[in-house]
């Protein structure tokens, strides 16, 4: 089952990403990868989460000019077009099994561009998951929950989130510094 709102938003992301790739509009592709973050935070469904990871990973690969020199690049670009069209087709029909297979093929085809790219893809997929989990956390979900949704641990997510501006938000402060320190002094018997 997929929620109608989630289906509508993913279809929009897929269609816009397809056009962005066709016109080599990378800023637009990057923007699309953030469109399902709200749904990922609210519904926490695998479809909203996986599309944001796949589109962001695609953006990161396509922005690397050097990769276009590899022999298999054109083959990859053709397969990407095919799989994006397929994923739209399957999603419209709510054939979620084949939709997911198409998304997975996009990532596995990335690793076939070249051995060098393949090494990079593993790191890229991990850093993309960390980035997306941090976005979900920024929207109010705990680190533990956000990490779980992206198949990560707190060990991986906390240092990344700590380096964002997430905790500098005015809503982050729930007690005064003075109250907190006086309380801790009290329990530790510090005068």
């Amino acid at each position, binding site marked *: 089952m997929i929620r109608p*709102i989630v289906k509508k938003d993913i279809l929009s992301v897929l269609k816009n990403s397809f056009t962005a790739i066709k016109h080599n509009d990378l800023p637009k592709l990057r923007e699309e990868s953030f469109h399902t973050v*709200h749904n990922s*935070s*609210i*519904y*926490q469904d695998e479809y909203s989460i996986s599309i944001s990871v796949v589109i962001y990973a695609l953006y990161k690969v396509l922005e690397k000019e050097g990769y276009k020199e590899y022999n298999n690049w054109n083959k990859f670009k053709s397969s990407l077009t095919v799989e994006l069209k397929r994923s739209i087709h399957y999603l419209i029909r709510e054939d979620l099994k084949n939709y997911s297979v198409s998304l997975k093929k996009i990532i596995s085809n990335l690793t076939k561009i070249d051995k060098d790219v393949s090494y990079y893809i593993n790191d890229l997929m991990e850093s993309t998951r960390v980035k997306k989990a941090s976005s979900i956390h*920024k*929207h*109010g*979900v*705990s*680190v*533990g*929950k956000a*990490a*779980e949704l992206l198949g990560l*641990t*707190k*060990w*991986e*997510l*906390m*240092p990344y*989130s*700590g*380096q964002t501006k*997430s*905790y*500098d*938000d005015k*809503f*982050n*402060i*729930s*007690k*005064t*510094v*003075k109250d*907190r*320190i006086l*309380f*801790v*002094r009290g*329990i*530790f*018997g*510090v005068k």
Partner: protein
Amino acid sequence: MKSIAIDSGTIISMVTNNLFWVFKHLVKQYKGEFIISKSVYDEIVSYPLTTKRFKLEAVMVNDYILEGIIKVEDPKELGNLSNELLELANDIFLVKGEPMKILHKAEVDVLALAIHLKSDALLTDERALRLLIENPIKLQKLMENKLHTKIILNKGKLDVFQELTKNINVIRSTEIITIAYELGLLNRYITAKKIVHTKYKKLLLEGALWALKLKGCSISEEEIKEIIKFEGFGA
């Protein structure tokens, strides 16, 4: 026996900054127990021991557990309370008609442990858990602000959650390190040639607080500045 219940995030912030050793001294100062739940133990020891990346940190934490500085508690009666808290916490905020799940089971387990043991404090660096206990309206506003959507509060569920957590006092790793600083424990970093170089004390405290923030403690830059000021240093 009095106790402080510790969440996994705090242990991660401390150990990844090589500041975990302060617990050895603080447990004596406190004259009580530092406690973690079984699920926190799994997050910070059992699982990372199976990986390459955080194995060393897990070994270091495990040594503190073997030493008895940190104790693992897994009372049987905790299950029901933990499940109730998890269900309540994840049903409090309704977005577009659906409850938004904000907390993870392990985070709620340690909260349940703190309630069960009537702990003096819950030591957690997790923002959602802290705000939900101390000021759920701020969490609601934060979510509305980020999601650009109206968030409906389930008042009934919130009331029950607040009743269960009314005696919980939340502290973070940054407060712990401030106390360690006040006790002079951090002076070891500014004692070249066996002299405490007091002119570096402000930098020492500032550095420790920023290190914890950058490893994931949910403290703002503004709060760090306030702590520095509260400890007697100018801006």
